[in-house]
């Protein structure tokens, strides 16, 4: 490859990120991609129930803003943020036990396969209402401000979520009180079958920040370096008490809204265009160009991650479902009794 190293190649200095950070980001992207593709397959094979929301194609938008957060920082994800969950520290065991709805899952099988969360890792288990966790994560940021902590909250949502009233109320509040929160809009052009042109009368969803008095920027969401740097700066500003940022990441989901959606409403060429901008391939190329990765190293990484995933699948499939009676648990704290039906 040495012959290819011309002056046009990027250097670490130009990028101004450390080797460690770049490798960390790339590793996260790869882990997320491999896990996501594997889960898709599992679902299609009927190995788990419910449905599955793939985020393949969007990985940089969730890995970038999450990488390097503290456990005490809180993320408020939606349904398509497996990348954020993995990067924030959920284990494959936790995630796969979740999709299999087993008792070993963080939610013990109560909620839904795609509702990954973890209190120790600072990941709110989502409720399904679109933009629900945008509101709740803003409340976490409000608490950090009252507590005078320099933690931040990061809320993830699609461009479709910006149409919701709760979303507006949260961002408005964050603007008034300059809360330590970063809003990551993954504009993947579609909300289920509805194109972004029917979602809002504007071209740039980042413009919505103008209604709240804090910065909004639109970036290439498939460029992990741009996403990471933009988010890091916003996070630093938030920690310093300088308020929220709305970051619109332009991206695209490769597959259907969920695995049961053939996504016939899209033009095939649109997908082909976006596949050329694959965020994982682009990161890979960058790493190779920087001399931080070789094909061999990559293969070894794939092999190791794949093995981890297969172990986690075994773990999950070997795990039991919660017992029927456990339906009565975790409704209230112990102080409040739950009424059980005679059986």
């Amino acid at each position, binding site marked *: 490859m040495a012959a290819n190293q011309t002056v046009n190649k990027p250097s670490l200095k130009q990028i101004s990120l450390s080797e460690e950070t770049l490798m960390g980001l790339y590793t996260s992207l790869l882990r997320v991609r491999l896990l996501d593709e594997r889960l898709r397959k599992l679902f299609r094979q009927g190995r788990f129930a419910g449905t599955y929301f793939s985020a393949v194609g969007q990985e940089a938008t969730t890995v970038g803003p999450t990488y390097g957060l503290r456990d005490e920082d809180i993320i408020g994800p939606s349904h398509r943020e497996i990348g954020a969950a993995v990067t924030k520290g959920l284990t494959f065991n936790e995630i796969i036990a979740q999709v299999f709805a087993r008792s070993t899952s963080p939610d013990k099988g109560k909620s839904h396969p795609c509702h990954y969360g973890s209190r120790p890792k600072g990941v709110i288990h989502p409720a399904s209402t679109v933009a629900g966790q945008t509101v709740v994560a803003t409340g976490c940021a409000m608490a950090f401000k009252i507590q005078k902590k320099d933690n931040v909250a990061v809320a993830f949502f699609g461009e479709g979520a910006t149409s919701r*009233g709760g979303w507006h109320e949260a961002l408005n509040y964050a603007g008034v009180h300059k809360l330590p929160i970063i809003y990551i809009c993954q504009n993947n052009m579609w909300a*289920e079958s509805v194109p972004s042109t029917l979602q809002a009368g504007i071209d740039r969803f980042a413009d919505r920040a103008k209604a709240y008095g804090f910065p909004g920027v639109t970036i290439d969401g498939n460029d992990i370096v741009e996403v990471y740097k933009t988010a890091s700066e916003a996070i630093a500003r938030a920690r310093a008490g300088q308020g929220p940022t709305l970051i619109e990441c332009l991206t695209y989901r490769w597959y259907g809204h969920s695995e049961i959606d053939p996504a016939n409403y899209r033009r095939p060429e649109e997908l082909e265009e976006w596949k050329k901008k694959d965020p994982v391939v682009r990161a890979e190329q960058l790493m190779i160009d920087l001399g931080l990765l070789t094909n061999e190293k990559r293969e070894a990484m794939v092999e190791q991650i794949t093995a981890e995933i297969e172990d986690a699948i075994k773990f999950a499939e070997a795990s039991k479902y919660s017992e029927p009676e456990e339906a009565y648990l975790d*409704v209230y704290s112990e102080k409040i009794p739950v009424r059980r039906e005679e059986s």
Partner: protein
Amino acid sequence: MKTTTYIEAITEAMAEEMARDERVFLIGEDIGLYGGVFKATKGLQERFGVDRVIDSPISEAYIVGGSVGAAMVGMRPIPEIQFADFITPSMDQIIQQAAKIRYRTGGQWTCPMTVRVCCGGDVGGGLYHSQINEQWFFSQPGLVVLFPSTPYDAKGLLKSAVRGEDPVIYFEHKRLYRSIKEDLPEEDFTVPIGKAAVRREGKDITIVAYGLMAHRSIDAAKALENEGISAEIIDMRTLLPWDRETIYESIKKTSRAVLVQENTKTGGVMAEVSASITEDLFDYLDAPVTRVCGLDVPMLPFAPPLEHFFLPNADKIVKAVKKVMEY
């Protein structure tokens, strides 16, 4: 006659009403080209155009509130709530606007709107794709609440709703969409609002239910027959205003009642039915009116054993009936 599934009956009702009345239009998420997440509106945008089958932004408050406004100036909107779980953001528009517009304006403004709400469990939907929240609307005078269990009723009640002059919350149970078929007349028909259906005659006990539970109750009645117990099954169909006469008639005959409700027990529709029966028919009762309901935990947990444990089913109904018969 044409064999029609529950969901086809809904689609046909909309198509026919749109064809006969240009004031009828649909608004909701993914209802256009996509035809709705369950395909209830399949083909309607192609047929009636983007102005009458509107793919809304993710804005439940607007979907309902905008429909209220449209209804007030002469339209007949049928807004769709993709899952009952997501009706919460539109509560203000339903309760404070739709339900009270006639009352608060001395009858000047009205709101002929039919909110279609896809609901119900036993589909592996978990906490946020299984909910039913009929009890909130059931307790709001000014609303009509419908809950069909058969293709015939689904079609006939939807037509009555669209042709009526009142705001209607129309629950459709996703478990029934493709599992229930029936031969429907080719010609136009409606099913009257406010009338329950006797699904099966019986003399020993009255079982009252609606939606999916009407079917579970029929299954239970079949099993009970083998044990010599003759159960009369009443399907409420309209929850608000509910049909006291039909239910009371039956109980006067049987003297015993079991009430079946898929939703969480406490504070549900069947609490009202039970309380009313007691108030009005105390002397007729030979045993306590007994409910079979979803558990008093959030409706409903995802994992199959938990979901199964939560939901009422034929076995649980049979057991309750026997207990009441032995009283």
